[in-house]
Structure formats: structure tokens, C-alpha cells
């Protein structure tokens, strides 16, 4: 169980992010919560691809004595995480720009207040 701490941390990050999304009322805090959730997913994917006593799947100046399929971490989860990170920053920028625009219109960032003002 103690060795599975990275998995637990990934799940804990996801739960914290979910908490922020569901219970916080500030729009910027909600965006931050989504960002944390996404970090949890990234950590989970990378942790799935980790092999003990292995190095990254890059052949440039590989240390001597590395066995080729077993001595390397899995490349596919890393590639997926790579695309996920750039998508994350783009989506965060989009969410924040919406939040800024909403603040300009309604003068508040509170989600419930905005819902009340809209009616």
C-alpha cells in the first residue's frame, strides 16, 4: 500500500479539484479547480507508464547496459500526457477569458449571483 502513494496522490488531486469545482462559488477558483483535476489525470497517466529501474525511452547517449524493451518506461502514456498539457493551458485561458468577460458585464464573479442577475 505504501508503494502506491502516487496513485493515491493522483486520486486525491482529482477529488480536490472536484471539490473546488462543485463547492466553490468564485469563477476563477473553479477554473483553478479544473486545472488541478487535470494535473491529477496527468499524474495518473504518467504513473501508469512507470517501470522500476528504467530510463526514459530516448536512445541518445543511453547509459550502457540498458535492456531494450524492459529497461524503458512506456512511451504511449507520456505522449498522451503531452497533448493533454497543451490542451489544458488553452482551455484554462478560454475559461479565464469568459470569467473576465462575465465580470465586466455583471460586476461580480460569484456564480450564484450571476445566475440570479441573469433572470
Amino acid at each position: 500500500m505504501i508503494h502506491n502513494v502516487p496513485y493515491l496522490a493522483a486520486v486525491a488531486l482529482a477529488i480536490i479539484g472536484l471539490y473546488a469545482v462543485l463547492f466553490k462559488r468564485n469563477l476563477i477558483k473553479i477554473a483553478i479547480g479544473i486545472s488541478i483535476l487535470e494535473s491529477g489525470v496527468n499524474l495518473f497517466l504518467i504513473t501508469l507508464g512507470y517501470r522500476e529501474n528504467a530510463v526514459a525511452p530516448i536512445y541518445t547517449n543511453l547509459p550502457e547496459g540498458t535492456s531494450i524493451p524492459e529497461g524503458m518506461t512506456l512511451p504511449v502514456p507520456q505522449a498522451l500526457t503531452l497533448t493533454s498539457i497543451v490542451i489544458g493551458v488553452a482551455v484554462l485561458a478560454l475559461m479565464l477569458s469568459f470569467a473576465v468577460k462575465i465580470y465586466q458585464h455583471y460586476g461580480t464573479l460569484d456564480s450564484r449571483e450571476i445566475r440570479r442577475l441573469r433572470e
Partner: protein
Amino acid sequence: MNKIAILMVFIIFSCALISTILTLRPFGEPKSTEMDDYIIKNAQNETGSNNAVTSVVFDYRGFDTLGEATVLFTAVAGVLLVLRRNAHE
């Protein structure tokens, strides 16, 4: 009423996530599929690139990168659309 529903959703999701973790393989010993071994062994010959991750990103799974580029483009267009008119006023 609304608050109770949100709390229920939160608790159900958390329980699902935690119960998933308990059934996973131990840390550091992944189940290596045939695909991963194939990519690690043959990436250098087939794509000529030393970095297996780059060859996965742009060659074996190029469609993912295409989708990612589309999402990036859409997000940038959205940000410009939302904010730019205001900057000119």
C-alpha cells in the same frame, strides 16, 4: 435540495475513484502490452528518431496531435473572439 444533490454527486465520484485505485496493479510494474514493446523496439528503425515519445506523438498517433492542434486553434480563436472587440473600444 440542490446542495444535497451536489454532495451526493461528490461522494459517489470520490468513492468510485478510490475503489478504482484499490484494484490497480502495484506501482512500478505496469502490464506491458505488445504495442509498447513494438514501439520501443522499432521506433528507431521505422521513423529514424531517437526519441520514442516524439515518434509516438507525430507518427504512430498523429491523429491525436491533429486533434490537439484543432483544440488549440479553437481555444485561441475563442479567446480572441471574446476579448478583442473590447480592447478596441
